[in-house]
């Protein structure tokens, strides 16, 4: 288990809202190995977004431990978290989260900017990443000049450009029509086959069923962890195996 990319043990994240403690995550444990493609599935309010923020080093847990690529994330300062996100994680968001005024190329370069890479090198890398998602001829377009599917590809290129150890996707097809969503999923499939580790957060069983493995969350607890096709079709509250 020690060389697992993600090792989560008894992870809790509690919020205090109006004097009441909300247990968004309540003792979650699992491990994800390198090269896995795992869906985290749950309905809204299940805690999957909270879990995604924790895995993405955007938030810190109330208790429990989280190791990412051998580093203990618990107790890291803001700067260290920022560096970890920059190096280890490639984000793909439902709403793309591209800078509206920047070209596709500039958007893809952004993680490398914060890595302090030279202009020449990051440009070359960004061009390569855009080529890899089939957008060579859209590099100088701004997001509003691109279709939804193209925007998400730009986001994926941006996620991959820094060669992170983990691709973390949050409802990546949520804002796309079925055909375009399928295209994106096939892109993930391809990335998985080439050895990338992917965590995909979704509420859609259909999507989770496509993944080799799925973890189902309900009320801040893991209620299912197994092959995607099985976990995706589970009834909400039944655990299969740990």
């Amino acid at each position: 288990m020690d060389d697992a990319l993600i090792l989560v043990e008894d992870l809790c994240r509690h919020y205090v809202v109006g004097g009441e403690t909300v247990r968004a995550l309540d003792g979650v444990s699992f491990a994800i190995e390198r090269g896995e493609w795992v869906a985290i599935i749950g309905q809204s309010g299940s805690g999957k977004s909270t879990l995604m923020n924790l895995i993405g080093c955007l938030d810190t847990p109330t208790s429990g431990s989280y190791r990412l690529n051998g580093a203990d994330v618990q107790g890291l300062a803001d700067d260290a978290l920022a560096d970890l996100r920059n190096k280890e994680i490639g984000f793909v968001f439902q709403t793309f989260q591209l800078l509206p005024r920047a070209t596709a190329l500039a958007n893809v370069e952004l993680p490398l900017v914060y890595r302090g890479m030279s202009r020449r090198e990051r440009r070359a890398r960004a061009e390569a990443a855009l080529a890899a998602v089939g957008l060579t001829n859209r590099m100088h377009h701004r997001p509003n000049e691109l279709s939804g599917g193209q925007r998400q590809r730009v986001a994926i290129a941006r996620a991959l450009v820094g060669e992170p150890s983990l691709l973390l996707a949050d409802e990546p097809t949520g804002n796309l029509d079925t055909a375009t969503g399928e295209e994106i999923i096939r892109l993930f499939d391809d990335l998985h086959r080439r050895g990338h580790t992917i965590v995909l957060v979704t509420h859609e069983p259909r999507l989770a069923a496509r993944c080799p493995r799925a973890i189902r969350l309900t009320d801040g607890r893991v209620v299912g962890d197994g092959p995607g096709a099985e976990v995706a079709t589970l009834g909400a509250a039944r655990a299969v195996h740990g």
Partner: protein
Amino acid sequence: MTALLDTITMALGTLRANVLRSVLTLLGIVIGASTVVAMMSLTEGFRLKLTSDFAALGAGAFQVQKWPALQFGPHDHRKYERRPDLTREQGEALRELPHVAYVSIEEWARRPESLSTRERATKQSISVCGGLPDYERANGVDIALGRFISHTDVQLGRRVIVIGADVQDTLFPGQDPLGQEVRVRGVPFEVIGVAERQGSILGESKDAWAVVPWTAYERALGKVRNNNIAVVATTPDDAPRALEEVVAKLRRVRGLAPQEENDFEIFSNDTSAQLFDNLAKMVGAATFGVCALALLVGGIGVMNIMLVSVTERTREIGIRMALGARRRRILSQFLVESVVLSALGGLVGVLLGAGLALGANAIWQVPASIPAWAVIVSLASAGGAGLLFGIYPAARASKLDPVEAMRTE
């Protein structure tokens, strides 16, 4: 280095995306910077011009008068009125001083005169002096035509006159005035000389004058009891010594006790320059007041727009943080943006101010000279205002929570 360059590029990018807003925001700073540069350029121009004008008055020359030339603020008019007149005898007594070369004792009427020929007349704007040959040296007069008045003219009380260039222009346009008759209060004088043009100082002509021998002046126009005395030192370097000697001599002949203050005024190129420097300092202080106010207003404008910008770009900030921007990086991004914005305003202001000064120079012949320090001070204070007023918005941006920030629309 790459990081700073990237930050500046980003800043310029966002400013270009909001040109109109940036321009409006910067008005305060533009006004502040242009005020400083324009005012300082004009003041500096006047200073340079006056320095050369006063210097032209005659090297090593200074004047003794009963009345102060220019006064600022409240003053006691009667104190000067009670002073005894400067008499011809007191002036003549200065000739024996070792470092005094020329003493020009001058009788000036209180009001300017109108000079006339049969065909033409000047306005009542010509100062007429009853003087001595020493007048020429003491006032830096160069003779263009004819000659200046001589000792013989004075001894014989000849009714001869030397006229300034303005008088020549008005009474004898395109003619030879020598030997012609000019009337002052109806009394005819013969023109024996015309002075070279001296130009104008602060818009006032230095050529609207005429000199006649004082003997003739007193006989024809009446005696003026109080004299102006212009003294020329043996050499320009001796001027301070000559000045000391003159003050000591005058105190003695005017019977002042050691504890009494001088009952006369001394004007030299130095005191004139000092006078103007004092004036320039007041103008400078007022300008800086205006400028500080404009910078304050401009700075608040910049702070406001930066706060708006942070709010508008909350999502962008969230994205940048998610992709690995440290908080300090976000802070510096907005600080640099604020400084670049303000410095641009400063630059526009400097150009505008310089343009105003040069335009005034071209249109109204107002002297102008743009001092480098005014440009530097303007740019630095504009940038400084950007830094100061950018801190709060930038700090606010850097403290955002990335998850919350990315959720805003």
